[in-house]
């Protein structure tokens, strides 16, 4: 495996907010790398800290009541402590973001063309005509019909899916190296979802940008992610390649997530399994492993915070935060194996072979 300098390197990121109820730690020691051109999915439920992590990389969580720790190195710039000026240079031009709700993410009183031109002009200062041409070309690339006409429309004149495409066009307008997509399809219909995701992947293939895809939906992830980070309550509880996570998940939370995906090709279950309990209130977390109250396999080592490390032979990049030994995990996982199409006896390789080429389209 070649050792290439990662594009983005996050170490021990911490973000907390001061609220009426006290100090709330939203992100509690998150570390990961992002390689050039890879699609990294960050998966977790509400309150897991996944969005805050993504936003913090662009400095969008800088508020008077926010506190930060850790570092994020991108092309020689340290983003967490960077000055406002440095950040502004990075935003849009190097790291761009697609937000969750396209309805509210565009300014309703400005034309969409103007809103994209604004970003281009801020970073590149092109002559108006040239900027406008680029915008029309971008809109075409994201699949917007009649781009030359619609470039002068207002956001409310578009449907949700179209608006999201405009957001994608906006994000790509200055050829960024990293694209952060924060739940890009959550506010859209399922049918549009596939289109948008396909668009994102196609664009990654075309321009080679790395993508951080933040979502709560593993189904979305299964089609396009290269690697996955599973977050829970401010921490990464498991990380690995797509196959590793889907076919050899190590953390009980991941099992729960996978088990709750409805599958067309499996026999219908009488009741869709859900993870018991609720996510912990961010202000009052349990000591040690945060997942304890909801974990059916809790034992006496759990009050100690499990470190995020690889416990499997030969798979140093497949890490998890669970004290259980790999054998114990395999045993306990057997019980839920059938649901996720896993052959409990075989390992990752066997299941990789089983899945076939369909996924790697």
């Amino acid at each position: 495996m070649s050792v290439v300098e990662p594009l983005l390197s996050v170490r021990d990121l911490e973000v907390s907010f001061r609220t009426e109820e006290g100090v709330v730690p939203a992100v509690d020691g998150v570390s990961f790398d992002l390689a050039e051109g890879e699609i990294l999915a960050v998966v977790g439920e509400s309150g897991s800290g996944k969005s805050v992590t993504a936003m913090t990389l662009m400095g969008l969580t800088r508020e008077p009541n926010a506190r930060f720790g850790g570092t994020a190195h991108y092309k020689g710039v340290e983003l967490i402590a960077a000055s406002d000026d440095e950040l502004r240079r990075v935003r849009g031009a190097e790291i761009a973001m697609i937000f969750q709700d396209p309805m509210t993410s565009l300014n309703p009183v400005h034309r969409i063309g103007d809103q994209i031109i604004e970003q281009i002009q801020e970073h590149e200062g092109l002559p108006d005509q040239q900027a406008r041409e680029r915008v029309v070309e971008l809109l075409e690339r994201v699949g917007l019909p009649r781009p030359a006409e619609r470039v002068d429309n207002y956001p409310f004149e578009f449907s949700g899916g179209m608006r999201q495409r405009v957001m994608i066009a906006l994000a790509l307008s200055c050829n960024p190296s990293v694209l952060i997509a924060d739940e890009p399809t959550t506010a859209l219909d399922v049918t549009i979802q596939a289109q948008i995701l396909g668009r994102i992947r196609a664009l990654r293939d075309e321009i080679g940008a790395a993508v951080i895809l933040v979502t709560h939906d593993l189904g979305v992830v299964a089609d396009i992610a290269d690697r996955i980070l599973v977050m829970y309550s401010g921490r990464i509880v498991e990380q690995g390649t797509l196959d590793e996570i889907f076919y050899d998940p190590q953390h009980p939370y991941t099992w729960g997530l996978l088990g709750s995906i409805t599958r067309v090709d499996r026999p219908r279950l009488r009741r869709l399994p859900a993870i018991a309990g609720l996510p912990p209130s961010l202000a009052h977390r349990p000591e040690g492993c945060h997942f304890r109250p909801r974990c059916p396999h809790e034992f006496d080592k759990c009050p100690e915070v499990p470190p995020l490390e690889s416990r499997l032979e030969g798979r140093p990049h497949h890490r998890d935060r669970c004290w259980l030994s790999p054998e114990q995990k395999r045993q306990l996982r057997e019980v839920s194996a059938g649901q996720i199409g896993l052959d409990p006896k075989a390992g990752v390789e066997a299941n990789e072979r089983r899945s076939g080429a369909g996924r790697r389209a």
Partner: protein
Amino acid sequence: MAIDPATELAHERPGARDDDAAPERTAGVGPWRLAARRLRRDRVALAFGALFLVLVALCLGAPIWANQIAHTDPYKNHLTQKIVVDGKRTNVVSLDGIPIGPTWRGKFFLGADTNGRDTAVRLLYGGRNSLKIGVLAALITTVLAVLLGLLAGYLRGLSDTVISRALDVIWAYPVALLAVALGTALSLGGLEIGPIHVSGDSMLIPTLIIAVVYVPYMARPIRGQVLGLREKEFVEATRAQGAGPLRIMFTEILPNLSSTIVVFFPLMVANAILLEAALGFLGVGVLPPEPSWGNMIGDGVEHILTGPHLAIVPGLMLVITVLTLNIFGDGVRDAFDPRARIHLEH
């Protein structure tokens, strides 16, 4: 379709927690409790709210001051009297019409007016009147505005058209002109609606005028809110149960207006007090010899050359009172709609 036994087993997670044994109960806190909590934390708003109550108490205690300390009443004029000031005997009102300034003593604590009356005594009695008018007018406005807003917003159709047009007319009428016109007309002849007779110099006249003038100010936002509320599912649900419009309006919609009402009320009192002052200034509010802050300011401005304290004293009192109401009202508004939202979920 046969069910894979493995999936059945999956539901019996060994050692799984019992869902019903919730570890901590998060007590549900309704919007009122939350607002009250937030208000309690707003020291400044509470302080000014308390100050307002102190001022009210002071004014209500007017008779005590008048009888025990100043030994006079608000109507008695001491034009020809002399009192001792700094050891000298001076006229309460000098020969060329200039009244004495504040003595900071029991009698004529804040000086006298051009009629030789004790300013401090009149200030407190005037405060009683102004506050009474202010609060009563605000109450009437609130009741009318809520009623009209509810009817117009919920019933729509003809009721809405008629009520909205009427509100438009009042709204389009320049406030001061309307109040002054009504004030003048009514203070002359009084008001006679059927069996109800209100004499021209009753304080009810300015009260009613102020109340009516401000109705559109509050009724329109309420109507707007009702328009939104009537589309909500819980209203539809009640309708499906067979409830009539009256019941829906008063049991479903009205409670949801309560936060708006609570926020508006202090501001309406403040506005009423200010309008009363304007009317008094123009001579059509509370009529002499009855004091009110409005007509005291009016007098003071007229005779400002003889002594600015005549205008400053009642004005300052009014400003402070209205200010306390505004600050407290602001605090109430903030308590119901706080700005400090933490954006954790994006």
